[in-house]
């Protein structure tokens, strides 16, 4: 599935208005951001299961 197809697929799942032209407009940003997500994924993949929790709170 290429980037445009993935964009269309997720948009449909979220009930968002999306067509091929808009998916094409999104594609460069989408591609860059998925690359970044992959970089982070690779970094986090090495962590053990008892690594710090992903609690979304700022505990000062």
């Amino acid at each position, binding site marked *: 599935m290429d980037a445009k197809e993935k964009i269309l697929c997720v948009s449909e799942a*979220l009930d968002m208005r999306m067509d091929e032209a808009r998916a094409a407009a999104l594609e460069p940003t989408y591609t860059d951001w998925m690359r970044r997500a992959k970089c982070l994924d690779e970094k986090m993949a090495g962590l053990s299961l008892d690594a710090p929790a*992903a609690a979304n709170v700022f505990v000062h």
Partner: protein
Amino acid sequence: MSELLGATLTEIAEKIRTREVTSEEVTRCCLKRIEETSDRNIFISVYERESLAQARACDLLTEAGISLGPLHGVPIALKDNINMKGLRTTAGSKILRGNIPKEDATVAARLRSAGAVIIGKTNMHEFAWGGTTENPHYGCCANAWDKTRNPAGSSGGSGSAVALGCCYGALGTDTGGSVRLPSAVNGITGIRPSIGRISNYGVIPLAYSEDTVGPMCRSVEDCAVMFGVLAGHDYRDKTTALVAAQDYTAELHKGVRDIRLGIIKDYSMLHNQPDVQKCYEEALEQFRSLGAIIKEIELPDIDTLIDAQLIIDAVEPSAVHLDLLRKRPEEYGEDVRILLEAGCMFTGTQYLQALSYRSIFKAEVEEALREVDAIVTPTLPFTALKIGQHEIEIVPGQIEDGLSGNMRYTAIASVSGKPALSIPIGFDAQGLPVGMQILGEAFEEALLFRIGNAYQQSTGYAKRTPVLG
């Protein structure tokens, strides 16, 4: 700039207090300045009638020997994502063009209670989701020093307004850097507070876990004065901390002897435009001459900081806007619409990974702040970009996106939740301002002001003002 307009907030408050000038006179000067700079699209709304009425009321109180507080009679502007009762708050958008809030945001109410004269609402990047303030609905805002360049963002209007003398202080909001970036490229001082230090109640959200409100002024002292008015728990915003606010001006003049300032190994000194690098190194030397100790620190996982920041900064706004994206997507500006739609594409797992990274990175920053009192970096690696320029070449041959390039240093505070102050530290060869970021431990804003003030008292960069051209 006239002597009156070139004065700092603290100076003008004193002149009003001693009746050397009236608040009405000062407000009229600012209104005239706003009119003179109207081609720069700095303001979305200007409150001429309301501000003059407030100013006259302040003058009557002054004559009766009454002062409402440290901002009594001083014209201040608010970024247009901060609610004011009965006055439109657009968030720089077409969608909220007719939005009339029923009550003040807490920060607006606190400023008014301290006597501030609210002169208008400044232009911003639409919904605060961007770093240029090139706003398709309210006009492209211009940089205070060069009309062909943008004022950064998203609080670009506030940055320009303060630098050009349209007001003596302004509020911005900072998620990924939106107070610090326009402060740096407009040559003024601005602070992102600790998460939980200042209320977000009544501020239109962008990213719930990173949004903050911060003052932008012409000096560190001014920022400290405004900060003292704004800081403190708010029962209406349950994310505000139960940590007591303090007098943020009390330590201003303690100097920096033996204060340890950290530079990030393999990061702070790399990947900056040459003039930014030069100004940064000169600022470090200046701090050394004042008795500060410069020390290298490590943040081992900083290499994926921007990746995590962009994921958090993309997913959260998309969640905020999902309903509107479904119903009224065509009413967004194209750049913001793309960011919001693309943000919807991340999975929950990817977002959780970014939050896990946040926990790790926050711990590394805290570890570093046990070795040093503050971490210092350039605020951003480059000076103001040309209007319409959205890519930058810092390293020859390597083109990078302006949005992520902007956040190289500001993301450190945004992801870790720590406070960070931006101060002017010089100018590049084209006369464009350069900023330095000073980042500290949570709720240590008074220390950041102390460090920044020591630098400002020993240099003249904060006093330079742009010439209208």
